[in-house]
């Protein structure tokens, strides 16, 4: 793997780490498998791109994208809580509706952002080679949001949200409004996802209506893979695991992409990735069965 391939893995991993943090909130904390992200990721890209080509500066556009993303989460929460639609189906419904919404926002399937002032532009003048610029900014953004989530989950409201996910009936009996927790949790998660979409689009040089394809797989691989490799009960460790999981997924993919030498071709990338992720999931399981076995290795 070349330095460039590694940098590519790192920056893409960091951009998708925000989706992974969102998936941690929904999938792990709230126990709500949220498929809205396949629509809210391109939604963030679409909003940011449309605002940027309309003359709004990149920072405002990115922030607005994150806020609009929260609305997508609210929509899924509404479908699930008010209309009593199954959580997975509610997310799918919002995601397919967002496909049309995104086309409306952009007026066409693709908006190019090449040679525009993006959020990365100021970091290109730091004196380091310009291809490091996304990494500098994304590292800061990801760390900030990771810490904010850690702090949030430690507040009274955050603890209530964790209780609502862990045992909704018990939580309800203790006066926690489970519905409100789901609304807030999904709003936060999809806001993070849309923010990630906006940041990724500016790195890629375009927003495209099909950008959401595979986002849920990447997010779940990061959360499941990361927390399997770094098992812990502490929130700050688990969010860190999600961020690292996102980066490791990309490094695995970069390895899969440079596996030509062993007779694999371009079309094998997905299966190689699946095998690598499966190994990542299996290794910790294997370790724990060893340690539990009486008279085993330890």
């Amino acid at each position, binding site marked *: 793997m070349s330095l460039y391939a590694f940098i590519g893995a790192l920056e893409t991993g960091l951009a998708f780490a925000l989706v992974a943090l969102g998936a941690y909130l929904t999938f792990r904390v709230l126990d709500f498998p949220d498929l809205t992200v396949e629509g809210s990721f391109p939604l963030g890209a679409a909003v940011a791109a449309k605002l940027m080509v309309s003359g709004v500066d990149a920072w405002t556009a990115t922030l607005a994208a994150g806020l609009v993303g929260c609305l997508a989460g609210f929509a899924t929460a509404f479908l699930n809580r008010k209309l009593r639609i199954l959580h997975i189906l509610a997310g799918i419904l919002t995601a397919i509706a967002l496909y049309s919404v995104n086309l409306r926002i952009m007026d066409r399937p693709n908006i*190019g952002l090449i040679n525009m002032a993006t959020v990365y532009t100021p970091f290109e003048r730091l004196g380091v080679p310009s291809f490091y610029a996304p990494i500098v900014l994304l590292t800061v953004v990801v760390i900030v949001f990771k810490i904010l989530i850690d702090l949030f989950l430690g507040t009274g409201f955050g603890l209530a949200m964790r209780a609502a996910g862990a045992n909704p009936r018990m939580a309800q009996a203790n006066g926690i409004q489970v519905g409100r927790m789901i609304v807030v949790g999904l709003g936060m998660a999809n806001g993070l996802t849309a923010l990630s979409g906006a940041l990724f689009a500016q790195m890629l040089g375009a927003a495209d209506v099909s950008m959401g394809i595979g986002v849920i797989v990447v997010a779940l691989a990061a959360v499941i893979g990361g927390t399997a490799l770094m098992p812990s009960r502490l929130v700050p460790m688990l969010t860190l695991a999600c961020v690292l999981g996102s980066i490791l997924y990309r490094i695995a993919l970069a390895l899969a992409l440079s596996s030509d030498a062993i007779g694999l071709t*371009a079309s094998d990338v997905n299966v190689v990735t699946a095998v690598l992720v499966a190994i990542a999931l299996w290794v910790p399981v294997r370790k724990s069965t060893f340690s539990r076995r009486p008279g085993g290795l330890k």
Partner: protein
Amino acid sequence: MSKISFAIAGAVFSLALSVSAQAADAVKTMSIITMNDTPQLLEVKEGLIKGLAAHGYTEGKNLKVDFKSAQGNFGTAQQIVRQFIGEKPDVIVTITTPTSQAAVAATKDIPIIFTTVTDPLKSKLVTRENHPGGNASGISDLVPTESQINIVKEIVPNLKTLGLVYDPSLDNARSTVESIKAIAPKMGFKTIESPAMGINNVPSAGQALVGKVEAIFVPNDTTVYGAFESLVKVAQDAKIPIFTAERRSVQRGAVATVGFDFVDMGKRTADMVDKVFKGTSPGDMDVQYMKDLPNSLALYVNKESAAKMGVKLSPALLKRAAQVF
């Protein structure tokens, strides 16, 4: 004195010769990225390799090809582009708009030739089409709407109203319809739109046009093509000729179309890649439109279907056709 200068000149000359010989023998490297593995895009890649072979570059001998597909995933596309940049190939060929944007955004040094991009200007791949500057140029696959309508007028000379059957939720179908409506007044006919939302509504969209139009045109529309035979049936019963925007539907019963072949498009891409290998910067090459290149368009007709829909194909037209079904 003169002996020495002669010897020096000779040495310089032979050195220059050996350098140029080395450059010609050296293996050229080309990295290709595609967004998807659809048949047309793979045909472009196939044509690219064939075209380079015609220019004297044989894969595995003096040409090293690295072909990767993002399999529809944008994150993967971004990573493939980064990997290519690290490998510093002589040229990066990008198939489809998003992969082209990812490559152009990521490198200002490595030459990029893009292909099957519909609108290079709107996609921001280039800032102008003549001598675009920078490190990227390529070929657009914009559909030759005007040539396609010319064929309709040639086969149906008394065309007054053209029916357009399409699915309005499909972006590319909608944009073709918009461009037909834009050229219609200039070419002396009116248009009636008959939207088909979903495959089940295709026959009724055709029936709605019976008695109102002299011909029906279908843009590149996956919905209508999904139930194309049902539309052909309606048109045969009402004796209205149907025209389409691509070859396969002519085989399935449309009267005719004018279009380009994607293997051929790959070969035209290879012509540009060859220039890059010979030292021309993409910035000095004009962006090309496949539909405007000489001999790029081919005529496809269906004789049997034409008879059933009540139109005659002239012998001159049949002679011009690249393929008669």
